[in-house]
């Protein structure tokens, strides 16, 4: 059975931008990337799935359950969310940040137990950051911060994780580091991952399927090899590119760099 089903999702902001009739299916253990230019609706779609924005109809199901109807804590046990990397006001330790992922399992007056700390440490190990657990979250690198947020989402024991542009602000190496972790943990924990990305080459390398978006609609969906094509890139980004394809890989090469 599909892990996540989005059925005819429509949403409109007051200022006019709208998502129209978005349909999406994601299986457990797979990574689906939302790709598209700025303002194409990727972040809006992620927020709708996570109920931070309210679509016109209830149309998001995880394991067949309507997540928009749920209480916040019920939803947070199914959906883990990785926001764009940020610098928070308070210098909590890395472990404390990850521990906050256990909040949906606690009542209002409860504090995390030893078992919750163990869960948080396990999540940190999974992303390879256990050695940083006592460091202030504000004093680690951007890539490590992103990994910490992924660990926090994993500590929620979710069925799905949503990642909003997890590679923004990261250097070349860290972009790969973070996306590799996303793919590994999705497989290992049988979690469905839905993320938005800007770089077609990264999307191609790290996705099981790509959803190409433009102007609030889905333009193409499917295997990366079928979605990342010269025609699609031209249609969505208005750029002329060449797809370089050889035995070692496949690369989207812009043709208008100097013009």
């Amino acid at each position, binding site marked *: 059975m599909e892990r996540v089903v989005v059925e005819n999702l429509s949403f409109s902001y007051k200022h006019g931008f709208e998502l129209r009739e978005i349909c999406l299916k994601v299986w457990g253990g797979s990574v689906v990337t939302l790709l598209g230019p700025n303002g194409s609706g990727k972040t809006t779609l992620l927020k709708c799935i*996570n109920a*931070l924005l309210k679509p016109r109809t209830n149309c998001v199901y995880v394991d067949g359950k309507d997540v928009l109807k749920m*209480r*916040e*804590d*019920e*939803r*947070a*046990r199914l*959906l*883990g*969310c990785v*926001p764009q990397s940020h*610098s*928070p*006001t*308070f*210098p*909590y*330790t890395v472990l*404390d940040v990850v521990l*906050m*992922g256990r*909040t*949906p399992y*606690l009542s*209002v*007056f*409860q*504090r*995390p137990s030893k078992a919750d700390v163990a869960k948080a440490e396990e999540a940190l190990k999974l992303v390879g950051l256990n050695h940083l657990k006592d460091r202030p979250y*504000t004093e680690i690198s951007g890539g490590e911060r992103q990994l910490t947020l992924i660990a*926090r989402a994993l500590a*929620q024991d979710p069925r799905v994780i949503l990642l909003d542009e997890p590679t923004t602000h990261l250097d070349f190496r860290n972009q790969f580091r973070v996306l590799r972790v996303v793919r590994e943990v999705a497989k290992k924990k049988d979690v469905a991952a839905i993320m938005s990305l800007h770089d077609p080459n990264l999307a191609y390398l790290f996705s099981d399927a790509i959803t190409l978006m433009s102007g609030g609609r889905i333009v193409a969906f499917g295997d990366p090899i079928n979605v990342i094509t010269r025609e699609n890139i031209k249609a969505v980004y208005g750029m002329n590119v060449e797809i370089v394809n050889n035995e070692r890989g496949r690369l989207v090469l812009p043709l208008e760099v100097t013009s």
Partner: protein
Amino acid sequence: MKKTPFVTLAILPPIVALISLFLGTYFTPPETVLNMIFTKLISPGTHSPWPAVYETIVFNIRLPRIALALLGGLALSVAGASLQTVFRNPLVDSYILGISAGAGFGAALAIAVFPHLLGIQLSAFAFGILAFFITYSIAKTRGGTPTVSLVLAGVIVSSLFSAALSLVKFFTDPHQLAGIVTWLMGSLAVTGWRDVATIAPLVLVGFAALFLMRWRLNVLSLGDEEARSLGINVERERLVVLLAATLIVSSFTSVAGIIGWVGLMVPHMARMYLKSPDNRVVIPASACIGSALLLLADDAARCLTTFELPVGVLTTIGGAPFFLFLLKKGGARAWRE
């Protein structure tokens, strides 16, 4: 690692409280005071060999005043720590939501119109709470109550009540005006057991709520969207925090007037001392530091000169430079943008 600093903090208020029992303009021999305390504790009924005036001073003047200072320091500091956290803003203090301006106006109005002690306290309390509800309803939009709107609404409500307060002052005769000015400076001087008994339940209920929710405060400090996606009903839980903070601050302010800086300063001191922003430890630490600090300030207020100084002025005079010192020492690391 977290145990040792805590023991130090926990014994701080009792020690300061004990010392405070000996202090005052009326000299009471320390050994007699100790003797009296032990006799009271062990066999309260015994006939006392010391002058009755000692007993009145220690048990009916100093002790309730000490209790009020402890409660007030706790109230202002814990409210300050909670509000700084949910507003994610280091410059927020326990009066951010317009409580002090509301309470000030309420007290002034009562002093001008109906100068009876209980009336003044009730009016200050009611207007403090009212100011909060106005702030909250201004900030409330269809989608929720963003913290920025809350801060702005708090500023607007504060300045409205300040203007109303000026108007009351303008129309009040000089004798009553003096009363208003004194009230606004904040003082624990006219305390009796009745004041303590009135506000203690309110302060303790609000404190209990904030103390129990201290883990939630951490999560709320991440901002609305993140807290929500971590499973928190942000609107509801933040309202509970704001209500609890308003309750404890308004009830203390209603009997003591406006005492500034404690709510701003103490949470920072707690974070710097603990080297952690984690509210699981910052909230109890703020309670300990705050109560000891306000009590010390009040001791200074009643002992420094032959007459009473307003403790609110002392906390400001002492607080501002001390805070500056901490910041210069690098304490700003405990809170970075």
